[in-house]
């Protein structure tokens, strides 16, 4: 902040920040640093620095608009304190009434994707057709080529940038590690043996 360069009367970084603000308010999907740099006709490093200024200005508690890093890019959204007002004006069809089956399918696609419907059915033990169709309709998952392991292999699915955005993820790598959640195989194995012993007794 104390760098003498920033004391120049017409601060160029400040000007770049204003340009970025303009680009972000016009955009309807997150913009990557590369896209911002190209549109602003400036270099990526300076864009990152300017984004810092914009982020400071548009943060929770300071502004009704918040700049966030989401789905691999930068995007403006409403502040959380305005959520109720927004809810009265807008619906959120992408995530409304997601069933347990849809969420499980979404989890499988997010962690193991791209994966096919048979692969999903194999893990869940029931057909995934309707859950997959439902998620595709909502725009949370999309087709991603075919399974290469067989000729005419099943269509595979992956999550979309909208999924990351709805769930507030910078990228899929922000999902918690699978090992960190859930019961481990040992516990389940122990329970299975318990049941088996009861039956043979």
């Amino acid at each position, binding site marked *: 902040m104390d760098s003498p360069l920033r004391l120049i009367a017409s601060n160029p970084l400040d000007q770049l920040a204003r340009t970025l603000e303009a680009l972000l308010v016009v955009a309807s*999907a997150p*913009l990557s640093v590369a896209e911002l740099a190209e549109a602003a006709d400036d270099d990526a490093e300076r864009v990152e620095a300017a984004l810092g200024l914009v982020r400071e200005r548009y943060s929770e508690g300071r502004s009704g608009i918040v700049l966030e890093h989401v789905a691999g890019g930068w995007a403006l*959204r*409403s502040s959380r304190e305005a959520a109720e007002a927004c809810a009265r004006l807008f619906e959120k069809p992408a*995530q409304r009434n*997601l069933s347990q089956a849809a969420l499980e399918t979404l*989890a499988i696609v997010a*962690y193991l994707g791209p994966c096919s419907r048979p692969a999903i059915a194999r893990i869940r033990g029931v057909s995934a057709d309707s859950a997959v169709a439902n998620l595709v309709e909502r725009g949370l998952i999309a087709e991603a080529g075919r399974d290469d392991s067989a000729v005419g292999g099943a269509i595979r699915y992956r999550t979309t940038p909208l999924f990351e955005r709805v*769930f507030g993820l910078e990228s899929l790598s922000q999902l918690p590690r699978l090992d960190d959640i859930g019961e481990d195989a040992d516990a389940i*194995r122990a329970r299975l043996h318990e049941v088996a012993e009861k039956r043979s007794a």
Partner: protein
Amino acid sequence: MIVRELELDLDAFEGPFDLLLTLVLKDELDLREVDVAGIVLAFVERLDERDALDLDACGEFLVLISALLELKARGLFPEEAAELAELEPEEAAEELARRLAEYRRMKDAAGWLRERLATEGERYFRLGPAPLAPKVETPLAPQEPEKLAHVLRLLAAEPPVVSLVHMALRFPPVSQFVERFRAVLRRRSRFDFDQEVGPLSRVEQAVAFLALLELRRSGEIAIEQAAPFAPIRISRPGVEREGSWTVRSA
């Protein structure tokens, strides 16, 4: 009660249980489409209709339905059937535990997503296709206003009246031909229709033919035609077809 004759009314199949089994075994019916619970329901309903419990029927049904279930399960997981069959009981239990654990993890991941949705649902954002690349504008070549005015003047001119002449078929009166043929027959005893009307238009030929029929009806002429599409010959009634025929017209 005969289990094999149990009538079924399922989405995928309608008829006796026996036929369903046959179709399934012949691979003509996809078991995945068959609602096994529906079959059980039908059987139980049938059992309920009777006072005494038919143990033989129950036993037979149990055997058949379990075979059907096994087939269906194999059908749903074809590649796993072989895989699991080769496993020792210990390994199978291991494999089962592994799969249950996998599902359990995914279920927990789904739970995490649900929680995430609850906390992140407060964020509203703009959605829609983003026109990231500016549209390429195709500039127009420079134009002269005089040219435009000229083109507009051409467009503003009264359009020429479209001729509808070709649309009206002109039918000459039948009487015209009636008179004409009478005149011909006054001069000659016979004539050939094609030669008489040959040079006329198609419409005129048609009207001439109507005139011919008119004359025939009133008995003024006799009409002869050796064969279909052969020349039509007209003569005064009473004049027989003889060697005296000569073409004198045309």
